[in-house]
């Protein structure tokens, strides 16, 4: 297979030097071809490709193709539906009995059993394996023994809360009540792992084996991964195409150019510089759909200046000084939507998204902004500095625009300035070391489509991503209540109450919801992006 590809490339290269030739792929005219392979842009995953070690979109894309977990989030609604799970039962929101369906295997022939899950979760939680998503297992009893918080030697290798009952059943005991726990199980970190993973780890890493609709045909790190539809896949969401070639691009502009030249079928990240002409270039082959990502400005509550009484007025005033409509229109070409709460529209109303929950506090009003800031005692030191990383994501543009908006509203040229930090790593380490002196950029991409995920990790006292170290007893109490509530609708209501506490204190300024964007060639149809802004590859039809 690989040889053949080489030969083809070489032939194409030679031909390309002479004349215009179509080296694209096997064209078969109209109708969809379930054997045809499409090519898609990709970025080099940052971490080794293991379910519990992958925390960014590029690696997650692959995991979504080669793994299926107990649950799967509906590509359209984001709802958590049973996949491998036959049933997940609980009487007290703390002890769960999970039964898995019959007939599932890994693509190497191994059966998927209860042990595949328990082993995988134990591996992910164990400190010695350095898994970056280990905290996902933090709710399971015994986590503090396999993953001591202070980094001391772990006293257990396995989670005491996990027990295999038989081939098809296992039980999970959590260390606290968590009613929506089953809905978190669609996250890739909870994927099952075959015995081959533990027997020969290096071999598995160079060519991962999973139980999803695709299997990996070849993987050249840093350049390309070829995935092919796995014929014996037992699930209902079989691949509608023959496979996907993920090609690593150093620059999304080049990927876009390749799409224009007919050299690539799918680009899932339209470069900002092309947003102006993408409509004209692609027409309805351009997708711009909401994703579970919200951008906010966080505050350093460990800094006395930002935490003294009255500052909530200053924070609200700053929020009111930002003209979100204008910035999302002019800078983002409507690929972001002004935020009116602290979650995301992908949750849907039943899931906890409440349009307008922020109310006046998120509406632009220069006069009111000025008044609020004065009432609150003015800006600390007379100036706010918004810190951001300048290396990726074109953050400079919008930070400058936000500052402009604040300066105009306050009638003061020096009220707000941007404070760039060279690299993302440095930006993160300054945040971790509590070195922020003013508001800073914060982005949150959901792990699973639950309102809990937009609030608890970010605003609960000492939570994993509470970068501003905000702490509020009332908020914590409401979140605890919500997690203990077995009735989903009631739980969502309690989370929304907690969100109102965030609003009243303006713990973080919500800026906008981010959309996922994609462009595709004429060969493809049925392309859509899931709530995580990843293309739903198995549904794409190639003609």
């Amino acid at each position, binding site marked *: 297979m690989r040889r053949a590809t080489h030969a083809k490339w070489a032939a194409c290269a030679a031909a390309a030097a002479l004349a215009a030739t179509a080296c694209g792929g096997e064209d078969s005219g109209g109708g969809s071809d379930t054997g045809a392979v499409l090519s898609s842009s990709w970025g080099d995953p940052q971490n080794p490709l293991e379910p519990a070690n992958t925390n960014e979109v590029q690696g997650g894309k692959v995991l979504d193709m080669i793994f299926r977990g107990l649950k799967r989030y509906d590509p359209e609604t984001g709802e958590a539906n049973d996949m491998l799970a036959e049933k997940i039962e609980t009487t007290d929101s703390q002890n769960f009995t999970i039964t898995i369906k019959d007939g599932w295997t890994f693509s190497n022939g191994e059966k998927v059993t209860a042990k595949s899950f328990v082993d995988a979760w134990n591996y992910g939680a164990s400190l010695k394996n350095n898994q970056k998503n280990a905290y996902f297992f933090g709710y399971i009893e015994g986590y503090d023994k396999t993953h001591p918080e202070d980094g001391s030697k772990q006293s257990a290798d396995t989670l005491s809360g996990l027990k295999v009952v038989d081939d098809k059943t296992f039980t999970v005991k959590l260390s606290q009540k968590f009613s929506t726990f089953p809905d978190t199980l669609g996250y890739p970190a909870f994927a099952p792992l075959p015995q081959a993973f533990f027997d020969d780890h290096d071999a598995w890493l160079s060519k991962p084996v999973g139980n999803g609709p695709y299997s990996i045909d070849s993987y050249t790190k840093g350049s390309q991964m070829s995935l092919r539809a796995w014929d014996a896949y037992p699930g209902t969401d079989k691949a509608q195409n023959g496979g996907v070639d993920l090609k690593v691009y150093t620059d999304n502009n080049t990927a876009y150019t390749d799409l*224009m030249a007919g050299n690539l079928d799918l680009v899932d990240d339209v470069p900002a510089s092309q947003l102006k002409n993408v409509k004209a270039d692609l027409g309805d082959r351009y997708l711009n759909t909401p994703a579970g990502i919200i951008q906010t400005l966080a505050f350093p509550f460990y800094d006395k200046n930002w935490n003294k009484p009255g500052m909530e007025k200053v924070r609200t005033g700053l929020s009111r000084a930002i003209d979100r409509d204008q910035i999302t229109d002019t800078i983002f070409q409507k690929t972001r939507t002004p935020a009116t709460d602290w979650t995301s529209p992908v949750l849907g109303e039943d899931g906890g998204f409440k349009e307008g929950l922020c109310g006046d506090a998120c509406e632009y009003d220069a006069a009111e902004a000025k008044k609020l800031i004065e009432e609150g005692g003015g800006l600390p030191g007379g100036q706010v500095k918004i810190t951001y990383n300048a290396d990726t994501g074109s953050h400079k543009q919008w930070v400058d625009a936000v500052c402009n908006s604040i300066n105009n509203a306050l009638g003061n040229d020096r009220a707000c300035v941007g404070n760039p930090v060279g690299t993302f790593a440095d930006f993160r380490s300054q945040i971790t070391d509590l070195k922020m002196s003013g508001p800073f950029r914060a982005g949150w991409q959901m792990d699973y489509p639950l309102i809990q995920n937009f609030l608890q990790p970010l605003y609960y006292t000492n939570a994993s991503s509470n970068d501003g170290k905000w702490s509020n007893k009332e908020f914590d109490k409401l979140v605890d209540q919500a997690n203990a509530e077995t009735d989903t609708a009631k739980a969502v209501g309690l989370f929304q109450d907690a969100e109102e506490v965030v609003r009243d204190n303006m713990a973080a300024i919500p800026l906008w919801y981010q959309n996922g964007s994609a462009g595709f060639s004429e060969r493809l149809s049925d392309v859509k992006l899931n709530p995580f802004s990843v293309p739903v590859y198995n549904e794409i039809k190639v003609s």
Partner: protein
Amino acid sequence: MGRYVARRLLQMIPVFIGATLLIFLMVNVMGDPIAGLCGDRQCDPATAAQLRKEFGLDKPVVQQYLTYMGNVFTGDFGTAFNGQPVTELMASAFPVTIRLTVVAILFEIVIGITLGVVTGLRRGRPIDTSVLLVTLVVISVPTFVTGLLLQLLLGVEWGWIKPSVSTDATFGELIVPGLVLASVSLAYVTRLTRTSIAENKRSDYVRTAIAKGLPRRRVITKHLLRNSLIPVVTFIGTDIGALMGGAIVTERIFNIHGVGYQLYQGILRQNTQTVVGFVTVLVLVFLVANLLVDLLYAVLDPRIRYA
């Protein structure tokens, strides 16, 4: 000659140590790289500490440097954050960049020197003026403009080439990127050769050679060109290193997965091992290229050999 080479080799040691130490320090002052590995969230402290220990980042910088250099001499360049050994990254990146550099250097030598000789011999004629004008334009337009323009025209509008280079990066695919990469240096080579030829054309030994009745072709290649090439060789020699390290822009535009790409990723992810490893090899390339230039002098001009 032997002593000369030995002295040049010894001089390379302090340069090598100094350059790697500087890079090591520079990458280290950018902060804690582990903090950037967990995305827009904080790594849990226990895992972060564990990773720091694994990459040796918990030790003082000087100790890190010494361990690193110790390992380098045994051929171990460490591990990148995605779990791949840096030597593996090098094995995939350097061949590609070397091919690209070879294409670029060939363009410089063939087109640059030819144009230089032609214009140098016809100074002041229309061809000389027009070539001078073209080279001026090439020098003043940044590489990324030339690159993007050629990519758009040849790749998208006319469809002569593929806008991006495939994983294999064969010579055929690298022709256009190589030309883009070479463009500025090519213009300099043309101008250097032209000036040198024009100057030496009036020198005594050329007049003597002509007076002896040697054929014009022999006068130009054996006498005029050989003496005029010394500054050009210096330039091309140092340019080898510059092209390999400076290919970042070209490699990005044409999606070439070479040294520039790996360096860019390494810097973005603040991966000390990758950046220092690649820079170490690039420093070596620079040093060897300079050594070769000095040795070539001796071949071109025997007087230098005895100095």
